[in-house]
């Protein structure tokens, strides 16, 4: 290892090698497989730190495919953004690998699981390092595949099989737009290399328009589960909990945000508006849904959705910043790159979210293991004493996500709220309300899981998990605390950190007060409202509200199910019917039948009668004769 780019290459290939070795040789040797996979993850984490610390930023690329005027290259773009993301992926990924050692210890298909994790690491790092959109797309799809593989880990369960399928297909729908966007960008700008695009952007030579960014956003919406493609993420909780933590909370779902930040130079005002609103609505919707969940992982899943909505909204809010700063008409805005404040806020929240959400999930995993795979929060309770480490770390996670001051979430959330306040009051109001809800449901879970009496058999026999699980919890808890401190994040994110909007003066105070009010309102409300019983207090006291929320949550699934079962499948059946009956039956067999009838007709002319045959000869002779006379 002599040069920095080769380190990056190593970081990319190590997990791939790990996956390959496991798939080929270690299918039945789970322990060794786990060791290799964790080792690879550790090396990746190590390399990501080295790269970050070393400070060199580079781009490099080689040709991958060329056909005519179409070229795809394989390249790395390692800038501060990538460095930050690589660290998040590598670091959190490593911790989750370690956690999995314990969590998956008794699983029969451990080898497959770890191979899947390695494949995922490979794909995710590919996205992070990719220097062009085609390459992003390649790894984008691979990430989707690894997600499918890992959700489907318990494939003998119908629900897991269905969930994995759903995740993959919904992601493909997003990728449909993503790919079109890439191709459009390729022909519009002549390149999809991120550096080139930046250069063109700087020179105002980019072909701008809302189509390209919106199409690209489709991809992001699929992966980051934004409305209306959010349906797959809650179902994805069928996978093992570490997977939920790694893929469906900390890293993969954040890839959409990362992608948006990567292609920010293509953004235009209209597109950003759309993005902002999609993010805002997702955030609100998911928070509402989270309130009525009984499954601890589902709560976290909706929380993830909500937080992703925050990030997307934050990115979209970058648009408003420009319009205010320039003050020109909409025509001018077309020629201006959006202000990167949105990037800063989004990436900041992405990072902190990765820490505390991974923490929450892993802690939840620890709880689930402790409760012998019980996931219903109403059947838990009183785990505070039985699982002290888990309790403590989970608490930190809850505090972080709800934005308790001086914890990571506080800073990043404030940055977003501040951005919203400055740009769009409506969005600000919605996001604030969402924050209230966040506190509400997080404290609800916290209370129900750890306090009160144990309400289930399993919870009664709960026990603390082993060190492989608690150690990552502790480390992540530390990050959840410190990750938002300017000193820490600034170190990690380099120049990206400078983009984070910081409130000053009265705005600062407003935001601070707002977030505290939010915290107290939501958290306090939940703590006071919910009783630690086996039934949902909200359901008992306000069945109307509860029912409404449940229906709201279910509406999308029902809509999709209706579409798939009633429209898509029936249309397919109809086409199949037409194909079999009309095309293969009526036309083809009909044609064959007509020809067959002609054949029977022709055959019938051989009547066996000499006289008939003589008439044939007469006919022939007369025709020839008439032709000779010129009458024919």
């Amino acid at each position: 290892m002599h040069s920095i780019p080769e380190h990056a290459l190593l970081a990319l290939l190590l997990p791939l090698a790990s996956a390959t070795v496991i798939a080929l040789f270690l299918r039945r040797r789970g322990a060794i497989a786990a060791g290799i996979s964790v080792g690879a993850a550790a090396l990746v984490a190590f390399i990501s730190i080295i790269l970050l610390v070393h400070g060199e930023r580079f781009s490099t690329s080689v040709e991958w495919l060329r056909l005519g005027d179409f070229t795809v290259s394989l390249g790395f773009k390692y800038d501060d953004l990538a460095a930050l993301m690589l660290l998040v992926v590598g670091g959190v990924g490593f911790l989750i690998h370690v956690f999995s050692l314990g969590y998956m210890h008794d699983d029969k298909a451990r080898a497959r699981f770890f191979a899947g994790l390695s494949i995922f690491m490979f794909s995710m790092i590919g996205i992070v390092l990719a220097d062009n959109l085609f390459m992003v797309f390649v790894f984008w799809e691979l990430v989707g595949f690894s997600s499918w593989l890992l959700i489907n880990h318990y494939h003998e369960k119908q629900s897991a099989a269905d969930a994995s399928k759903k995740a993959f297909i919904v992601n493909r729908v997003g990728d449909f737009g993503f790919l079109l966007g890439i191709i459009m960008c390729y022909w519009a700008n002549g390149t999809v290399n991120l550096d080139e695009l930046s250069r063109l952007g700087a020179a105002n030579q980019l072909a701008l328009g809302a189509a390209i960014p919106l199409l690209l956003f489709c991809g992001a919406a699929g992966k980051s589960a934004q409305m209306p493609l959010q349906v797959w993420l809650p179902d994805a909780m069928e996978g093992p909990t570490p997977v939920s933590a790694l893929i469906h909370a900390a890293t993969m779902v954040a890839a959409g945000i990362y992608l948006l930040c990567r292609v920010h130079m293509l953004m235009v005002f209209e597109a950003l508006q759309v993005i902002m609103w999609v993010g805002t609505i997702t955030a609100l919707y998911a928070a509402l849904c989270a309130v009525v969940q009984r499954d601890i992982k589902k709560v976290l899943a909706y929380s993830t959705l909500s937080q992703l909505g925050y990030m997307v909204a934050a990115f979209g809010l970058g648009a408003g910043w420009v319009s205010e700063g320039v003050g020109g008409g909409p025509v001018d805005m077309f020629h201006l790159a959006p202000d990167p404040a949105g990037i800063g806020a989004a990436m900041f929240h992405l990072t902190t979210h990765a820490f505390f959400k991974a923490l929450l999930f892993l802690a939840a995993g620890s709880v689930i293991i402790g409760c012998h795979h019980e996931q219903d929060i109403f059947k838990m309770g009183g785990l505070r004493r039985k699982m002290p480490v888990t309790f403590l770390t989970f608490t930190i996670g809850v505090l972080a996500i709800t934005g308790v001051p001086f914890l990571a979430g506080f800073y990043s959330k404030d940055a977003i709220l501040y951005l919203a306040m400055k740009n769009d009051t409506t969005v600000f109001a919605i996001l604030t309300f969402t924050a209230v809800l966040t506190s509400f449901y997080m404290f609800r879970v916290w209370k129900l899981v750890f306090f009160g009496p144990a309400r289930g058999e399993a919870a009664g026999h709960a026990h603390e998990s082993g060190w492989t699980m608690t150690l990552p919890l502790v480390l992540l808890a530390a990050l959840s605390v410190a990750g938002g401190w300017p000193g820490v994040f600034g170190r990690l994110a380099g120049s990206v950190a400078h983009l984070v909007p910081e409130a000053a003066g009265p705005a600062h105070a407003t935001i601070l007060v707002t977030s505290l009010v939010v915290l107290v309102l939501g958290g306090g409300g939940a703590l006071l409202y919910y009783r630690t019983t086996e039934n949902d207090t909200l359901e008992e006291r306000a069945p109307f509200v509860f029912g409404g929320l449940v229906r709201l949550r279910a509406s999308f699934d029902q809509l999709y199910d209706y579409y798939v079962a009633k429209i898509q499948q029936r249309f397919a059946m109809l086409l199949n019917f037409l194909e079999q009956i009309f095309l293969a039956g009526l036309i083809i067999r009909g044609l064959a039948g007509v020809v067959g009838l002609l054949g029977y007709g022709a055959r019938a002319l051989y009547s066996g009668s000499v006289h008939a045959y003589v008439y044939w000869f007469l006919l022939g002779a007369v025709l020839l004769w008439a032709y000779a006379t010129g009458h024919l």
Partner: protein
Amino acid sequence: MTIGLDHYLLLSAVLFALGFLGVLLRKNTLVIYMCLELMLIASTVALVAFSHFNGTFDGNVFVFFILTIAAAEVAVGLAIIVALFRQRHTVQVEELNQLKH
């Protein structure tokens, strides 16, 4: 009126047509066969007439061959008809349609 080549040709054609008509009409194989002979004869009439009026001689020689061939044909044909009669006891063509379709 001078009897010329065209008259002979017309005669020959009518004879040929009569023969053909006979083949069309008659159901007795033997008569059909006679009609076929008539058609051959019709050709010879034309042939001899052409030879005469064109001053070529080959046509007449050809008649020799035609007559010989016709005789051979009749012999074979009648043998077939007789053999058929032995098997089927009929010479009516409408009863000879076992082979069909």
